[in-house]
């Protein structure tokens, strides 16, 4: 079966409504940047908790990481938006649900990145630093962290890419980011070919430079170390 007529690409549908798509892009950027910042902060706390000396703290932090990493993001966003308000009694906005979910999700993955980065250095080098008379803080600051941080950079970059891609899913709770704007515009103009392709290209334009940066950081800091 062939289509009635070969579809003609009407790029002007996108160019004329570009400001509408860009409004969605703005929300996507706000979501990605804010969640990344919160995710890094929360991830540091969780990583520290996972290396705590107390078993109960370690176990709780481990459970937190496993829950966020072993369930689909879609299940998480629907749970936070629809189920959490029933537990707490507070209704939350789609924006709040999106930020909570994206940053907690990112924090679980980032906590593992931080932990793996620190563990990859700790050990012999830490003992050597302590043997040279450094305090534990000095060893961490001068020996372990500088090496660990550079090794973590590519993995942190990958998480940032994932966050941008995952943020498209919050459109299911009607949080009006790029994907929501694209689907709405596609429905409104009946030109899903151009609009959805444009959305895909905008996402690629957001993440591809990050991917190149990750590759560069990987070559620079991981492979050569």
């Amino acid at each position, binding site marked *: 079966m062939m289509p009635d007529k070969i579809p003609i690409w009407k790029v002007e549908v996108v160019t004329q409504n570009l400001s509408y798509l860009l409004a969605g892009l703005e929300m996507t950027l706000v979501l990605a940047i804010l969640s990344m910042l919160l995710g890094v902060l929360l991830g540091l706390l969780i990583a520290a908790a996972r290396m705590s000396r107390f078993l109960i703290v370690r176990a709780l932090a481990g459970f937190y990481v*496993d829950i966020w990493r072993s369930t689909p*993001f*879609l299940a998480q966003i629907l749970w936070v938006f*629809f189920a959490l308000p*029933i537990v707490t009694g507070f209704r939350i906005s789609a924006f709040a649900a999106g930020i909570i979910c994206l940053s907690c999700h990112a924090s679980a993955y980032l906590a593992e990145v931080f932990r793996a980065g620190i563990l990859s250095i700790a050990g012999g080098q830490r003992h050597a630093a302590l043997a040279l008379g450094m305090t534990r803080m000095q060893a961490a600051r001068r020996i372990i962290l500088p090496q660990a941080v550079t090794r973590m950079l590519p993995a942190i970059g990958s998480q940032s*890419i994932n966050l941008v891609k*995952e943020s498209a899913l919050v459109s299911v709770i009607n949080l009006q980011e790029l994907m929501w704007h694209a689907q709405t515009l596609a429905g409104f103009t009946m030109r899903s070919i151009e609009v*959805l392709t444009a959305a895909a290209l905008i*996402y690629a334009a957001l993440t591809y430079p990050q991917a190149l940066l990750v590759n560069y950081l990987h070559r620079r800091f991981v492979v050569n170390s």
Partner: protein
Amino acid sequence: MPYIWRFDVVIANLPILLQGLWMTCALTVLSMVIGLVVGLVVALFRLSGWRILAVPATVFTELFRTTPLLVQVVWIFTVLPLMTGVALSPFFSGLVALGLNVAAFMAEIYRTGIYSVDRGQRHAAHALGMTNAQTMRRIVLPQAVMRMVPPMAAMWVALFKDTSILATIGVVELMYEARYLASDTFRPLEIFTAVAVVYFALAYPQSLLVNRLYERFRVRE
């Protein structure tokens, strides 16, 4: 008034959820097979050295790796029929989208696996008089495959979770059933919690296995 949990709602609808779960598992297996096969072809194209094959293969992997899966799924479900005139069911569009998405990541796993074998070994094999094919079969591939196993297993777990995205185009898998039941029974808390537990119970042991694999196949050079 304290909220009263009603997990009997979940029990009563268990057959529906299990049916969804079956579909989720079927989707995971089928897209993994597609991904493994198509990914291998794409990787071979990229490694072929012929630009006419390598460039499209690179564009394919980069496009599928840099755009959200949701965009890919919706694109293949709504745009592809408009362009080709072939309308696929939600199941097949979802399968194609997931399969191609996995293929893009698999192609990178194959490629980096092969590149990760030290170049010196290839040169040594050549110096010993092996042909290219012999070097590949006897020296490079046996080591490369070992290094591909852990990331492939990790991909499998990610895929299992990602199948849930197909609910948005109406593929009747676990997440779709969950959303349907949540609005049908007015019990989103119990239903969504139960479904999250099901995903967790299935994905968590698998991710433990992935960790074991990373330990087991760690490269020592």
